[in-house]
């Protein structure tokens, strides 16, 4: 996998976390007992297991007069089972699995590590997804049927004062506002070459504090989510690549030239 040349590149991007994931039609008759076999696929690289609450299905649809983004709606009895986290030894890499989801996270913390770049994360995710799909096929006679994919970039931008927002975000550049705190969410629809909507790009900017409450930062989160053109793994990876491009381009457009210089923009 090669980095597209037209994308802006930074020596020290403020990335804190990257998430790649797919949602698929639930594996029929899957039970928690089968999760042990799933972990066996990955445990050499991800030796630690944690349990987390299940993620509810999410569907991005378009059209209609109610422009509220997708929502979560509990149908029937509370879901049983759990989502499993498989953590790497240093805990910076994570796989998340439940009967209709598979995600991977790269995290800058807890052990500070340089960003391995999208290509490396996506290649590893594709390899692991193929492994999981083969296991489904061989052990459960289930062909993976991907109905949604998503990619998220979470950035943390340390600041001395939230009033510096205009220094970092071009959409606030030149603002006369004396910003005390920031909590902004907006989303846009992404269309294919025929003008047909197929994904949604969610933006969120929040002012946050360090755990001790003494230092401040802006948290900029960009999520690209929607239905890949096909229901197979290669379509999902193609969707994630498109999402990465959209996110990186928007990141550059939303942030200022001074910020780019601070993060070491190349070229």
């Amino acid at each position, binding site marked *: 996998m090669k980095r597209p040349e037209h994308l802006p590149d930074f020596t020290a991007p403020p990335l*804190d*976390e990257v*998430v790649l994931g797919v949602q698929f*039609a*639930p594996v029929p008759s899957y039970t928690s007992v089968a999760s042990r076999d799933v972990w066996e696929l990955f445990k050499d690289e991800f030796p630690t297991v*944690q349990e*987390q609450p299940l993620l*509810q*299905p999410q*569907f*991005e*649809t*378009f*059209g*209609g*007069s*109610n422009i*509220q*983004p*997708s*929502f*979560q*709606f509990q*149908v*029937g*009895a509370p*879901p049983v089972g759990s989502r499993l*986290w498989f953590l790497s030894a240093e805990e910076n890499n*994570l796989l998340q699995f439940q009967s*209709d989801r598979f*995600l991977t*996270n790269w*995290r800058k*913390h*807890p052990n*500070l590590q340089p960003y391995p770049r999208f290509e490396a994360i996506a290649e590893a995710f594709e390899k692991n997804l193929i492994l999981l799909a083969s296991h489904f096929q061989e052990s459960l006679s289930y062909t993976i049927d991907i*109905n949604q994919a998503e990619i*998220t970039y*979470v950035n*943390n931008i*340390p600041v001395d004062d939230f009033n510096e927002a205009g220094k970092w975000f071009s959409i606030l550049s030149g603002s006369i506002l004396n910003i005390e*705190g920031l*909590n902004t*969410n907006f989303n846009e629809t992404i269309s294919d070459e025929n003008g047909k*909507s*197929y994904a949604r790009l*969610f933006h969120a900017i*929040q*002012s*946050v*504090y*360090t*755990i001790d409450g003494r*230092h401040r*930062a802006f*948290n900029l*989160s960009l*999520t690209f989510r*929607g*239905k890949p053109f096909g229901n197979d793994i290669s379509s999902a990876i193609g969707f994630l690549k498109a999402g990465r491009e959209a996110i990186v381009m928007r990141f550059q457009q939303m942030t200022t030239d001074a910020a780019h210089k601070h993060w070491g923009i190349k070229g």
Partner: protein
Amino acid sequence: MRQVSSVFQNEVPNLLSSESNTSSLPLRSARVRITQPRSRWVAELKDRFDELTALPQGWDGYAGRPVSFNCAQFAANLLERLFVESVPAPQIVPGDDGTLQIEWHQNQFDIEIDVLAPYDVCAVKRDLRTGLVQEIELEIDFTPLSGWIADLGQVQTQAMRTGA
């Protein structure tokens, strides 16, 4: 670089908007934005969705399956997007294969939406006044359906004005 905790955001309530229900998962995980439904339709149909997803196997006297959670979730999402205040909530009818149908039959219009699976939807509109029948297949863009519902809303409003 200083370590920043995104989890800490939850402890600073003044930085969260009143309608945001963002949940930070523990231990620096990815956050998931959770939005609650706002439409009257979904609120009114909640019990019906619960009922249909809890149908026993063979509920129809044959091999009928309960409505799948995935179909129900997708249908609820779709209804939330299509909601029009002037149109009453539709009826929801189970299919025998885990699918469901959303139906309006009013003011000389029939609209039937078959949710076969997430992103796999067939819809039929019958105008009983003209005999015109339209049929469409949809995946992710429900703009045509939105037009049908808007038409239904317009007819409903006119009917209410004329007392029909």
